[in-house]
């Protein structure tokens, strides 16, 4: 019960990093959280537009979309999904470590998140390279082997959506890696403890959101008509 530790000295507003325009640290935390979620909602709608485009074109050209799933590497996609889920766990553990003022754990878990996030991006880069080698970039150079001629045109729509959606996702991951690096540096400088860990928690929200986007991208892009192959 919180009352049991009531004798502990209350942290000052300075220790709690309360800005002058907030009455209490709790009020500030509520405002920060609400602001972050508002930003994330705009992100949901940003990606939502691309998901809507995907759904419309998939409904128009279901067979072309199913045929192109042969060119997606499901094993690598699934492995990368697992890597991203691992990074979400380490991020949640990092927030917990910050809440408990465990600096070593915080840095350890932030590095873990960075490592998983970077692994995802490196694997993604190899996937993009494979698509390039197999002539799967939409445009004049698009001529994959073993694709029925009637699908040559519409298959490019899927690959266009694939590069847009995974590309925007990767951009968000790169931003996330930058934010995590910022957190690591500040953690070494003892910036975060149980009194103040807002940046860790807010960047955590962002990181988990990017994970959620991938949770939808994986089945929708990699597993269409997967049972054919």
């Amino acid at each position, binding site marked *: 019960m*919180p009352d049991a530790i009531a004798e502990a000295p209350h942290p000052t507003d300075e220790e709690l990093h309360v800005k002058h325009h907030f*009455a*209490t640290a*709790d*009020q500030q*935390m*509520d405002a920060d*959280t*609400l602001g972050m*979620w*508002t930003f*994330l*909602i705009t992100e*949901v*709608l940003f990606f*939502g537009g691309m*998901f*809507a485009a995907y*759904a*419309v074109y998939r*409904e*128009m*050209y*279901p*067979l*072309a979309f199913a045929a192109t799933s042969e060119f997606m590497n*499901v094993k690598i996609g*699934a492995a990368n*999904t*697992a890597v991203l*889920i*691992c990074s*979400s*766990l380490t*991020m*949640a*553990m990092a927030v*917990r470590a910050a*809440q*408990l003022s465990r600096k070593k754990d915080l840095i350890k878990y932030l590095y873990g998140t960075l490592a998983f996030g970077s692994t995802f991006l490196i694997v993604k880069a190899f996937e993009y390279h494979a698509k390039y080698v197999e002539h799967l970039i939409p445009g004049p150079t698009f001529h994959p082997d073993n694709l029925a001629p*009637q*699908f040559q*045109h*519409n298959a490019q729509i899927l690959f266009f959506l694939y590069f847009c959606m995974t590309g925007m996702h990767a951009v968000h991951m790169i931003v996330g890696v930058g934010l995590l690096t910022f957190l690591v540096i500040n953690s070494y400088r003892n910036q975060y403890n149980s009194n103040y860990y807002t940046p860790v*928690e807010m960047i*955590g*929200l962002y990181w*988990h*959101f990017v*994970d*959620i986007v991938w*949770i*939808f991208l*994986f*089945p*929708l892009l990699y*597993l269409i*008509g*997967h*049972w054919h192959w």
Partner: protein
Amino acid sequence: MSSEVKEHHHTHIPEVGTLVKVFVALIVGTAITAEVATFDLGEWNVVVALAIACTKATLVAWIFMGVRYTSQLTKLFCVAGLVFLSILLLITFSDYSSRSWTHHAKPWATNPSLGTSK
């Protein structure tokens, strides 16, 4: 300011066990998604895939992102975000799905050079 605001501490520190359970559920969900996709369920393939994805996303938001432990107002904003998303999807889909109801039938359905889909 009123003391009742100061009294209300809502920092929730999640249990390691809870986080690990969510992690395991997410990994299992991914495995099921990949496995189910190898069976031909017709129209249901995408339904099952999206149902699992929605469950996973809810788990991430509810526990990892701590929606469960946030204020009522933040929860309301999250729901509002989903409402906005559903408006986006609903209006887009109702547009495209109703286009064939007019006299101008889908050009891609009859013109072979555009690729035949259905």
